[in-house]
């Protein structure tokens, strides 16, 4: 249960990218580009490069990465859960 790292790319982002493999229950230090940090507890595995929710996101809620909307939650997402095609979808095309 050692502390793991994740990178958030914009102050407004509600998700971060795992900088290493994160296991269920791991405490995660989220590093923002401007130097700010915050903590989130992983509730499931989030492999290196995959996304972890920083806050609870309602179904239909916007997913923010790079400070931009990359899609919406297709089901409720809890803080610490992995975000991928099983619970998120894009809005384009």
């Amino acid at each position, binding site marked *: 249960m050692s502390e793991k*790292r994740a*990178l958030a*790319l914009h102050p407004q982002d509600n998700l971060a*990218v795992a*900088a*290493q493999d994160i296991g269920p229950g791991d405490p995660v230090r989220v590093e923002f580009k401007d130097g700010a940090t915050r903590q989130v507890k992983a509730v499931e595995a989030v*492999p*290196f*490069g*995959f*996304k972890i929710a920083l806050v609870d996101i309602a179904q239909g809620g916007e*997913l923010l*990465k*790079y400070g*931009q*909307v*990359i*899609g919406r939650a297709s089901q409720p997402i809890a803080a610490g859960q992995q*975000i*991928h*095609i099983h619970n*998120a*979808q*894009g*809005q*384009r*095309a």
Partner: protein
Amino acid sequence: MSFLGYPRPDGSYGTRNYVLILPGGLTSGKICEFVEGTRTIITPDYGGGRTKRDRETVARVLVGLGRNPNVAGVILHGLHPAMQYPELKPEVLAQQIAASGKPVEVITAEPYGDTYEVLVRGIKAARRLVHEASHVRRQEVGDEHLCLGVKCGVSDSTSGIAGNPAVGYIFDKVVAAGGIAMFGETTEIIGAEHLLAKRAANQEVAQRILTVSHDIEEKSKGYGQDIRTVNPIPANIEAGITTLEEKSLGAIAKAGTSPIQGVLAYGERPAGRGLYFVDNWMSMNSIFLGYTASGANATLMVWGGGGYVADTILYPSLGVVAPLIWTTGNVNTYRACEESMDFCAGTVIDGSETLSQAGDRLLELVRQVASGSCTKTDTLSFQEVSKVYFQDAAF
């Protein structure tokens, strides 16, 4: 000083010193087998049975390759039947290439002459041009003579936060120095086009960016296809990218932060210096050919890969005449194929380097390769097939 480049009569500087045999095909291939220091294009489609618009693209690519700073001299022949279309006639192409001031030779067979005659004359001419080209000496020149093109491939989450930003960093440096930098992949700006439009040098360019992005989305719908079933590709999703918007937002990081001076068609030469968006296709067999036709003297690939390898990482010089520098932002991918990867920006993710430190390291590598150092895949002896980016169906 930035790099050691071969001076060309039009004021450009080459990073390589090839003699180019055009068009592609059996005869050109055999001339290249005979003569060291030559290049030709390997492509399945010469423009025969293609629309005028697509034949003009072929012509633009052939002329652009011939004019590329990495080419010392050009030999053209008309043995392929497609070369009898008016816009593809060897004399027509030769005239446009010769405008750059470099030597161009057209080899035509006499009526009822034979193919072997062209082959023999081609070998003789190529040997002479290669010998002449060997007298050109590299000179010290600045970054303003770099003309770069970039593509990202098998993007994963590291591409948007390390691999692409490192290239974006050097694009900003090269543009600030007065050089040219090109990025593209129209299907990969969907969802990020509003951000690029804001960076356009003027309103006309902004509108053009929005138009080409809209057009590709509409083209997909026109075929009854959802572009999301094409892109993101399965390998992107396997590697953690969830949506097209997410992929696009990561992809545009490779463009840096400079104003966008214009939108180029595939193989079109930029009218000025600075950063350009190219309305092109994401296929790696196509995009680097387009960049070198637009004048790129070095090209960059940003590979994600998700830590996995593919046979594509063994592709050397897909732009035919310009070196291809393989980079990645993923340390696992780098470790998996270090024998082909020239650069890893994964340090930005593990925190051992800042983006500017990694970027400066990449810029130095580009200067070394531009000066004549091999990329790792330059050590391979084969050439992969290139594909011209066509707009229309074949008839």
